[in-house]
């Protein structure tokens, strides 16, 4: 497929940016008679935070679910570095380096930080001994703990001192950091954050926004869904506005104002 034709935005945007890393083209999704997504195009660059805004029911979450493989779209195509990729399951997505952090974080409160980071993907001894079923190979606790420490250090999360603390005893911001660390621990290049600051207080929100900036520095392509335009303007490089299942437009944060975004969200201008 000819990539240049379907990437009309390529090279039109500002000067210093990386090439387009990920793009979704012509994504359609119907729920009954309603167009949840109607011919949506969406693109991401590495080292860039893309804000995704829109009213409730605008299709943000549906788009995220399609990209992360949690929900199949009816038609459309995904490209990573110009090559078309199939995303049919969350597993597919994570293998392609796409990670999603859900609003509810999906952490197990009864397990410690390390266990949560490696849940379903533990480091084990004897992993080359195929006779022993995978689930029964002994865990390499220390390696996992070491890597957990490293992952949190990389994100500059310093408030969690022991990796053996149960999630139940951590604050909302700390939990968010762990969910993000889990998403970025493996070789992920794209991180989707669904309302990461929705339930947080002021200082914890700041903590999480720092983390988002940190992901940009580590050359991830980040998508930030939020209803809070202050947060969006604080960390995003560009903003995609969705309305009634359509992509209204992509704005450079530098050349736009919150008022413009609001009118775009509400009136589609």
């Amino acid at each position, binding site marked *: 497929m000819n990539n240049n034709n379907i990437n009309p935005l390529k090279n039109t945007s500002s000067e210093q940016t990386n090439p387009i890393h990920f793009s979704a083209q012509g994504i359609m999704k119907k729920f009954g008679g309603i167009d949840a997504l109607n011919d949506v195009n969406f693109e991401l660059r590495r080292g860039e935070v893309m804000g995704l805004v829109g009213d409730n029911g605008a299709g943000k979450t549906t788009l995220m679910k399609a990209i992360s493989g949690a929900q199949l779209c009816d038609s459309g195509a995904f490209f990573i570095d110009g090559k078309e990729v199939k995303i049919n399951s969350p597993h597919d997505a994570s293998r392609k380096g796409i990670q999603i952090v859900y609003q509810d974080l999906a952490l197990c*409160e009864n397990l410690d930080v390390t266990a949560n980071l490696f849940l379903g993907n533990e480091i084990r001894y004897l992993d080359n001994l195929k006779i022993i079923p995978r689930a*029964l190979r002994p865990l390499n606790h*220390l390696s996992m703990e070491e890597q957990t420490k490293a992952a949190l250090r990389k994100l500059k999360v310093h408030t969690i001192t022991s990796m053996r603390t149960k999630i139940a005893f951590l604050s909302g911001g700390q939990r968010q950091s762990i969910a993000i660390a889990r998403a970025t621990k493996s070789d992920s290049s794209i991180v989707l954050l669904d309302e990461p600051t929705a339930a947080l207080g002021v200082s914890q929100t700041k903590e999480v926004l720092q983390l988002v900036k940190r992901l940009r520095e580590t050359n991830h392509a980040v998508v930030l869904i939020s209803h809070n335009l202050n947060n969006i303007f604080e960390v995003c490089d560009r903003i995609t506005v969705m309305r009634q299942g359509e992509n209204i437009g992509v704005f450079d944060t530098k050349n736009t104002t919150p008022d413009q975004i609001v009118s775009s969200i509400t009136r589609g201008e």
Partner: protein
Amino acid sequence: MLKNIQEKIGYLRETQLGSFIPVLLALIVIWIYFGIKEPVFLSPRNFYFLFMQSAVVGTLAVGVTLVLLMGDIDLSIATVAGVCAAIVAVLSTKMGVSAPIACLAGLGAGAVLGGIMGTIIAYFRIPSFVVTLAGLLGFQGLMMKILGIHGAINVRDPFIRGLTTTTLPDSIGLILAAIGIIIFGLAIWNNRRARNAKNLDNDLLYLSIIKFIFFSTLVITATLILNAYRGVPLTIIILLSLTGFLGWLTTSTSYGRAMFAVGGNLESARRVGISIEYMRISAFALVGFMAAVGGIIGASRYASVSFNAFAGGPLLLEAIGAAVIGGTSLFGGRGSVWNAILGALVIGSLGNGLDLAGARAADKLMFSGAILLIAVTLDAVTRGGASRK
């Protein structure tokens, strides 16, 4: 204030040693009380019988802990134990099958029965409470069928009887205890060294030392007491080995992690790719297996298999009570198989002590009820603290 204390207790219960302490304290209090009231309670002979009496309940409690960890429950453990014991008894005494093979058949039957219930729970998404309740009723009938019109079969086979009558020579008991202590010490030492080498935070040194001294004292005292009567029973070794394996399985493998994850947050376990169906089926099969072990130990101890000893008595509630008294949460996600054994000892000691004190059945039941209620309340209270609701 109250919330603060709740949280502190909750935090304490989350640590390995901390989850041990409440049930151990309960046990010590019970022992001191009955020791003063009925000095014979603390005799080696009584301790020997206490351990043996608690073995069946302990085995079932260890088993049921596995599904409790996942937030499920198995109400059929006692009747599965009964069915398996009946199978072993019929095969070995009436059909002339050699006893070891009959035992294997019994163990296999337990795993299959558990696995079938697990499959129904997993694929039809029926609460385990209901499915195992149906199992409880159905297997009572099955047990009656297998036992025939007399409702009881005597077991005289020396192999099966030997499982609970054999005791190890004093020297071997002590050697095993020493090996256990050395392995435990080495494991702690090794872990500390490796953590230091990798620059990970370590437990305070004195905590590790206390842990070691505590474990060693426990093992040596128990061995010496048992040696002062007949020696360490083979039954205890079997139970400890199985518990050791299941303890390792639940804390040191991906399988165990998945169990805790399912009990802690089912949806998140599903999202990271854990097969809930596989977990349920295999865990219920394991519980069935442990129930069969309990059934065989019971058959061996009572020298007979009767309906009342398994299905009709308080065995089921004692086993689940033991697991909960040991600190395993009925809400899933927290617990330990080792604590189930301590819980079984609490229940066993209570029954034994009240018997010695000449208490009536009515008092015994009320005491057991009170202890269980305290344990469950503690569980609910600390759970509230831990999740900051």
